[in-house]
């Protein structure tokens, strides 16, 4: 199940990663090597096996829908690379 250069570029686009040509070629080879190795799992018949989600079998945890203190607006914006008053600033979305 080898992946092609076209697929590598498609995955990079899905993952929102700009890659240089060099990176694309390196990842093409490395991903194929690693995926070939991962295919080892195909040896196992798991049709009747339940998947593990939480290792101790813990299920959903619920709490009352109550307010409790959270970060202030200033704290929440503290690490933003670009902001304007109390908003995160991003490049223009609508042309």
């Amino acid at each position, binding site marked *: 199940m080898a992946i092609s250069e076209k697929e590598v570029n498609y995955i990079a686009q899905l993952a*929102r*990663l700009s890659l240089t040509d060099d990176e694309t070629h390196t990842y093409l080879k490395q991903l194929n090597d690693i995926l070939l*190795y991962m295919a080892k799992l195909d040896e*196992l018949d798991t049709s009747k096996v339940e998947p593990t989600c939480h290792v*101790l079998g*813990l299920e959903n945890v619920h709490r009352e829908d109550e307010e409790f203190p959270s970060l202030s607006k200033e704290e929440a914006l503290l690490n933003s690379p670009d902001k304007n008053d109390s908003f995160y600033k991003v490049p223009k*979305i609508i042309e």
Partner: protein
Amino acid sequence: MKLSHMNAHELKALLATKEVSCKEIMSSIFDEIDKREYDVAAYIHIRDKKELFTEAEKIDNRRLKADNIGILDGLPISIKDNICTKAIPTTCASKMLENFVPPYDATIIKKIRQADGIIIGKTNLDEFAMGSSTEHSAFKITKNPHNTDYVPGGTSGGACASVAANECIMAIGSDTGGSIRQPASFCGVTGLKPTYGRVSRFGLVAYGSSLDQIGTVTKNVKDTALLLQVIAGVDSLDATSVDESVPNYCDLLSLNGKLTVGIPKEFFAEGLDHEVENAVKNCISLLEKDGHNVIEISIPHTPYAVPAYYITACSEASSNLARYDGVKYGYRATDTKNLMDMYLKTRGSGFGAEVKRRIMLGTYTLSAGYYDAFYLKAAKVRTLIAQDFAKAFELCDIIISPVAPTAAYKIGEKADDPLAMYLGDIYSVIANLTGLPAISVPCGWTTSRLPIGVQLTTRALNEPLLLSAAYRLEQLLATVA
């Protein structure tokens, strides 16, 4: 002996009788940092010296007034730099978070502060805890304190090096696939990965959420019990944490009766270094001579652990790391044309090679049409491995094994071959796939004077048995050393 070279319990005894002060301990640690840090490079950030001495002095004054002091007694503790510390930078060793200063503390940081531990600084790691050598940090390469030509292991390489080089008394690390135990083995210190859910992960920067666990790095098993005591417990801010009472680990260290120790036959196969094998076998014979029953067991699905681990870890990483979008915090690329271009360039230039490789792999294995073949398949294989362990624990109490197939390797040796690096995780990833608690204890040296560790594993939430077995083994090793 220098104060910095002592373990936490030795220092606690000296503090209790007021023979030494926290300020003197801090000063001894800084002597060591001045002497070793330039070569070892364990830390990404060391806090302001004045601030640290003020904190130490405050605790000393409280002690003089006979106030109650928490069980960490003002001892200097280093924190891996993927755990959020309020007002102290937390970078994950990534350009992406180079300037990130968390507005909140991780739960374990709150607990350490409440127990009067002093957070001395933040230690280096492979970027976002992805790697096995601490060579994949965006800022610096940490060196093995026993020989600076060698890697300290990873990803908690900075944490383990900081303890081994006496640049702190104890350390906090995180373990997703062996990231505490393998560097502990490489650096000759004691590293514990508790049961998944035993310690809150709130404030730990997420990598592989179904595998990640915070744990301890110390100079001996008794100190492990002390630090685990502080950080263990359920947390409403971490829905995966387990609501079980926390035993008194320090009081439960002495072993009652004899153990049945299991040796997984699949672990002593091809690829295991001879010196490591001999060191582990030496531990087995010491336990046998001590009257414990040693039996061979089987974990038939061992060969499937590494592929199942990397599928799970990379899939979860690709999802977790989607949050680094250059908007809410962290790095943003400049000179971008539009929003999409900003995302692509920010993530393309903000992440390092290993992180991008894992995001790519994980995006692929989660993408439409492949989820069942990869992620779901790996989750089912985890069940099969867990069943192997359940069967093994019907026959034995403790499983003994190597931590890693080799001792530390030279810096640069595996940097260009990711698959070879991944295969080194064979013995350690299993505890993460199954959630079981496991500890690495120093057990010997190679002929080139590099440390070797041995791994003990037991049933979920049975840290008291794990620690008491490790404590016993540590004593047995000390008598023959």
